[in-house]
């Protein structure tokens, strides 16, 4: 079923920034890299009103949505309280500086 797909090099994603990945089956996925070089992937749709999370500001392991500033945890897709909701996280792994997504 799901398989690991090579996406890009870690260095293709800006530190504290993101890239948008488009998958046939899953649509837009936001790929993030934080200051500790951890890489995360979640669906690029804010649970609030569908804002593109990839365009938000990354801090710690969280992204702030660019539209109305909800905060979303990147590791599990949970929205930081007091707001509620979640977004689908995708498994990611990094091997030899390459990012793989399980789709």
């Amino acid at each position, binding site marked *: 079923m799901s398989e690991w797909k090579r996406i890009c090099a870690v260095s293709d994603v800006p530190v504290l920034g993101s890239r948008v990945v488009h*998958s046939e089956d899953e649509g837009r996925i936001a790929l993030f890299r934080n200051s500790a070089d951890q890489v995360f992937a979640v669906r690029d749709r804010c649970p609030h009103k569908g804002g593109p999370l990839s*365009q938000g*500001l990354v801090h710690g392991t969280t992204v702030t949505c660019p539209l109305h500033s909800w905060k979303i945890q990147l590791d599990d897709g949970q929205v930081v309280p007091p707001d509620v909701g979640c977004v689908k996280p995708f498994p990611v792994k990094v091997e030899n500086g390459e990012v793989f997504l399980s789709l």
Partner: protein
Amino acid sequence: MRKQKLVMVGNGMAGVRTLEELRKIAPDMYDITVFGAEPHPNYNRILLSPVLAGEMTIQDIILNDLQWYADNEITLHLGARVTQIDRKKRSVVATGKDGEPITVDYDRLLLATGSTPFMPPIPGKDLPGVISYRDIKDTDEMIDAAAKYQHAVVIGAGLLGLEAANGLALRGMDVTVVHISDWIMERQLDRTAGKMLQAALEAKGMKFKLNAQTAELVQGESGRVGAIKFKDGDSLPADLVCIAAGIRPNVELAEKSGIHCNRGIVVSDTLQTYDPRVYAVGECANHRGTAYGLVAPLFEQAKVAANHLAEMGIGRYEGSVTSTKLKVTGIDVFSAGDFSGAEGTEDIVLHDPGVGIYKRLVLKDDKLVGAVLYGDTKDGAWYFQLLKDEQDIRDIRDNLVFGNSHLGDVGHKGNSLAASMPDTAEVCGCNGVCKGTIVKAIKEQGLFTLEDVRKHTKASSSCGSCTGLVEQILASTIGGAYQPADSNNKAVCGCTDHSHGEVRKAIRDNKLLSVADTQKFLAWKTPNGCATCRPALNYYCLSTWPHEAIDDPQSRFINERAHANIQKDGTYSVVPRMWGGLTTPDELRAIADAAEKYKVPTVKVTGGQRIDLLGVKKEDLPAMWEDFAKAGMCSGHAYGKSLRTVKTCVGAEHCRFGTQRSMDLGVKLEKMLFGMWSPHKVKLAVSGCPRNCAESGIKDVGVIGVDSGYELYIGGNGGIKTEVAQFFCKVKDDAEVMEYGGAFIQLYREEGFYLERTCHYLERVGMEHIKKRVLEDEANRKALYEKLLFALQNYKDPWAEIFEDKSGGIHKRQFEIIKV
């Protein structure tokens, strides 16, 4: 590593708040044990008054339930009074609720023992039925007595006494308030306001006996108190006597263990006692000679104490200015600061006994130092803010007493509607939050600060225009417990305790050149800050060290990162610059071509005299920009905290009334300021004559041509709260407009706080300050102007930077989608 042990004595509002603050910044540092003499978890003592009045229940006022202590792994001993501290062995001994001793060691000890009610040495004060008003037990006893007996006497007409009397009266008792002075609340109110308040309370059924000295409380037949006798020979029946004659810091335990006390446990600015392992916060502490009796200062102390316990060591407590508000429903009394009428003070008084309004403002050296309001207190929070900020009120003095709403809207500080609003009225238009929801959250969740309210209700968390209103709702809901942050010293955000001013200073003094360096230098509490502080830091570095600081695109909002405005559906809008609102057939053709080529769904003329292409896909942006560049067009910065537009009218070039060439000057100004980053967006306008068709009166810098030159206006705003620009100066020609206007803008760039428009900056620093630096000091004006020009040198169109990046650098790649 062994965790350190923290023991807290006193499970009240100040102590538990300290633990909450500590949990936020150093969650795992201590093993915590808490002793509370009362059998209840931490509750909101302030709200005992509404409980007595029957407006709330005990359940409503619990702030931290037992689950909270469990969740935070705090060992809690309720009904356990600490009787001894052994500072050599570093342990405390308490008597548990079953009488068994409990001994616990500490590394650090926090004393938060509150106050004890003062009981004057009146014969009979120990009779059953004679109580004070301090805790749940007292409140229960009063509720109980009200159900059984008829006559109540309250001794002391301060806040507490009047709230007790009001509650007892509402519960059907016949209440007389006995007071030693010749008017009530004499410490908070002057005589006039005191008399008005008395009349209003009498109308609610309370009786008063003033100038009264109690001789004795007399035992009745039941063995309980039965009457009160006065020195003048009078007496009154009394089945319940509530003594509210003041409070004394509870220092018994500290004194016994040899800790220095003097009207309170004496503490330093870090809330440490003379034994540095022992801290004291709350009503039991005496800081710089003052022991506070209201919660707002205690919360500030809690923050600093927690900070020190967490070994961050940056916070200092420097004392508080307090305000009080009587919590008797239907009666509004507010007082703040010093209104004793000391030397060098002046009074402004408005007194209308007909409608029951009294306002007295005390001024000293053009600053507000005290305020008493009766009847109409909706401006209380505003006066309190002026007082705390020590704002110069010279310019608004003639209208000051009529309140904030009378001055016109002063930007984000709100317009005093809170008290009169119905619960269904919408307060926050962005998030659709109404007043009732906010009040409910404040009461039920025990919220005390604007931040709390933002977190729990979302109100005021978006555009911020309702901030003032929310602050007033807070103030009117929790009364004296509300402490507005000093607007000049508010922390930037939860990632730091430093204010904008402190951060700016650190960047300047220590030549900090990047967001990361600044965060490191100032010991930021979070790894990368957040969406609030990072853009601010990035701006501060760039504006302080032009050409040297390192711009961090990831610390900019998406609009500035993508050089276009994000739309609700994730597409972008593109606004090419049209200098001074002028365009050409070629430019219009290029726009039309681009709109067709990139299938732009909407083309709109903006309010800023140019054309917006809305709904462009992010992937198409670089190519579209390249097409525009070929037609000689560049970024309009419709997206940035930067120069937006310079609006112009046709002016002397064509208009029959025009006195000056406004289009010409507008283009010059826009070219001069191209690429300028600022605390918030900056808009200019140039009109050719006083008919002012370019609307110069609501711009950050507005220019109006007159026969002999130009008039300059600053600090206008046409946005969330319309603010008319203030006259700044008159100049003779285009060069002077550029120099004077440019110098003002540079001053704002250097001193403004991030997201502060010029109108808010002007309100904060005052027109005098700006005139001194720009008009009166020629050398400084020229220096400012030069610094502005230097900062803007060699600025390159950001659109060109991106599409010309043939190497496909990482910032260009943000526009590309990875397909899998």
